């Protein structure tokens, strides 16, 4: 303890080691509690591919939780047991030494990496490696500072061409359509709300008007950036009728926090009614 004295510490400090152990265990358990009790979980999944992601998430959560609690508690235990022992206490080495540690890490973590990293990739494949069905409903989504707009091809099933120079938000010409000269554009239906029929695959063509944005619907388990100059697309099938929030997750400027729209999933016939009503507004 003369060491403690020298650094200006009056009394013995072995209590501190024990205290550290206790505090650490409390912290570890308290941190794990809300997870174990599912107090904070993603909203219910309404997509056909989402369950794979959710399973992946809960598997990872189990393994991570195990590793987290294990490591913290071992740390606490060793500190409790081996801190501030009486002078000249016998020093021991962990049986097995570094070799054991290395092999354990390789085996356990290696297995985990394999399990999650390789086998787990099918959840990703579900989203990105399957092409959209040919009969999928095509909708174009445009992200701009700071709103989403969605375009339905209308009766002719074709999207009118986009002319950036014609974009006029004051006039609600968000896509820069040119109905005067472009017949295909005349019957395009533009909406601030993404309305889709339930249980029908939607192929969302993504177009960025100005800077980078992102399309995120928690319930759909879909997140994809809009990259200016790059024509990306996602496809998904919503299985539950309802109204869900679409948010932008890519910092896009001062209005980022307020850049959102709504996804409303309707029964097929309601959807057609909605389309008609929208068409009349154009």
């Amino acid at each position, binding site marked *: 303890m003369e060491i*403690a004295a020298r650094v*200006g510490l009056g009394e013995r400090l072995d209590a501190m080691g024990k205290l550290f152990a206790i505090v650490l265990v409390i912290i570890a358990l308290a941190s794990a509690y809300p997870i174990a009790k599912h107090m*904070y979980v993603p909203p219910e999944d309404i997509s056909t591919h989402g369950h794979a992601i959710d399973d992946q998430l809960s598997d990872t959560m189990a*393994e991570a939780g195990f590793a987290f609690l294990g490591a913290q508690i071992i740390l606490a235990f060793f500190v409790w047991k081996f801190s501030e022992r009486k002078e000249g206490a016998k020093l*021991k080495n962990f049986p097995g*030494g570094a070799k054991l540690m290395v092999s354990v890490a390789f085996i356990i973590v290696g297995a985990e*990496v394999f399990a999650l990293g390789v086998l787990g990739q099918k959840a*990703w494949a579900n*989203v990105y490696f399957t092409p959209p069905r040919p009969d999928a409903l095509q909708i174009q989504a445009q992200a701009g500072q700071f709103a989403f707009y969605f375009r339905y091809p209308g009766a002719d099933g074709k999207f009118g061409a986009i002319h950036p120079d014609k974009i006029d938000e004051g006039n609600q010409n968000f896509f820069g359509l040119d109905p005067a000269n472009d017949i295909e554009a005349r019957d395009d239906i533009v909406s601030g709300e993404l309305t889709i029929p339930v249980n029908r695959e939607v192929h969302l063509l993504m177009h960025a008007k100005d800077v980078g944005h992102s399309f995120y619907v928690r319930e759909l388990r879909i997140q994809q950036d809009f990259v200016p100059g*790059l024509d990306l697309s996602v496809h998904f099938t919503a299985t539950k009728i309802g109204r869900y929030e679409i948010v932008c997750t890519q910092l896009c400027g001062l209005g980022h926090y307020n850049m959102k729209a709504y996804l409303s999933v309707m029964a097929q016939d309601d959807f057609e009614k909605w389309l008609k009503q929208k068409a009349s507004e154009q």
Partner: protein
Amino acid sequence: MQEASAQPAHVHAPPEGFIRKHVFSLDHKVIGKQYYALGLLAVCMGMGLSWLMRFHLVWPTTRIPGLELLSKVGAPGGVITPEYYLSLLTMHGTLMVFFVLTNAPFAAFGNYFLPIQIGAEDMAFPRFNMMSFWTTLVAFLVLVLAFVIPDGPPISGWTSYAPLSAVGQDAGPGMGWGMNLWGISIAIFCIGSLLGALNFIATTLDLRAKGMTLMRMPICTWAWFITSCIALLAFAVLLPACILLILDRTAGTSFFIPSGLVVSDRLQPHSGGSPLLWQHLFWFFGHPEVYIAILPSMGIVSHILINSMRKPLLSSKVIIYCMMSIGFLSWMVWGHHMFVSGMNPFSSLLFSFPTLTITIPATIMTLIWLGSLYGANLRINAASLFALGFISMFVSGGVSGFFLAQPSIDIVLHATYFVVGHFHMVMGVASIFGVFAGTYFWYGKMTGRMMNEKLGQLHFWLTFIGTYCIFMPFHYLGLVGNIRRYSSFVNDFMGPLMPLHKFITIAALSTGAAQFIFLFNLIYSHFKGKPASENPWEGTTLEWSIPSPPPWNNFGGKHPVIYHDPYQYGVKGSKGDYIMQDSPEPSAS
């Protein structure tokens, strides 16, 4: 070998006068302290900004008295506007990542102790060394200049994604000159860091004392060496990226800006650029940067832990190899920041695998730290407490990395508070814990006076508990889908989360307040602390073989000869349970 004649001429005459001694000093120790001071200043600013952000998030319309003085436009009547929130966010990130996490554990402690620990009188190129600090300082000044110009600081975050960062004024307030200053500042910072890294490497390779083989170098020296190798390549990539960005903004080129963008109702006069190009360049630097921040702290913590355990690690070599492999792998994983950014989905898988693989060396290190504690005689003090805290933080931050490494889960968690919690714990708090540990451990050597131990431990408890209270809930928020970088929460899902946000804010304010104990201790001990002996911690490495504080040429002209591996603890030595690296007495092994 280095006889006196071999030494650079300038090392010979001790510097004269205040300016040469303390301001434009060539002495690596003074430069190290200067870096530390800069880091301290930056961290205070960064913390202040985070306070403002946290306050605004939970009390959006409450006016903060006097804030309008900081920016009349940004905070009319003391209420933070959305764009000013983003300015604060950008400056917080930039200050913390570049001027704190890169400066404090690496440049500051590295400069001070690397030459001493290898038995050198100074860095290989003292003039470069001085230049690298002053360059960094200029970078800092250019960055904070953004606060005072009418345009205000940029709002595109520390990652400055193009085209938002590239199109200029139209992108929003602060994206005019504010953004230019950001780009210039970072470019300058790169130059400073490159000079520093070059110096570290040359010094480590060529100025080692007789008998100091590479494998006899202390772990933290190794950490600084590996970090400089990473920094050397990482900043060499960020610099070109910044140059291209500045050209896009000022010279009308189109590296990052594609055709047909309409920003603020104006068609942008650019064509053909690739926004993803910026992301690739930035993250190719950005991910190694994470390890530039954390590796030095790993080294420092191992160094301190060994000393407090009074026994060597199960294997220092394995730790060193792990740090090397982490450094190596860090070059293949940048894409995991871009899983949902429109990259080819196949490359996402390619990036995911090495990312997950990094868990292996990380786990090995953790297991070795834990396993070494077994059967130790652990001395508990502020330094070792922070070292233990580092391990705990590193584990907590590490496991959450396991989620984000998987593209499929990243679909749900990308850009949520889960990510924020993850990198704050593993890269921010953990490496800051390393700095705290290093400060309590080395303060006596650097100033000649010990820090106050009681205050130190009080500081530890408040910080340790506080940081968990702040950053654990971030993960919960992320799981629910709380998006990051929102200046206020107008979303449907926010209602039930607000109490948690309030809790975080209160924790952040109080934990931040606890840091004033540290600041006070830092200043108070400088004048009133107990005088530090030559070797207060009964350490074995070279820094403990010289007076506290060391003379201007470290070893008083003598050239130490090394006889042992760095950590001869738990042996029968003449002084006690340890043998100094430079003592000729036979070692245990």
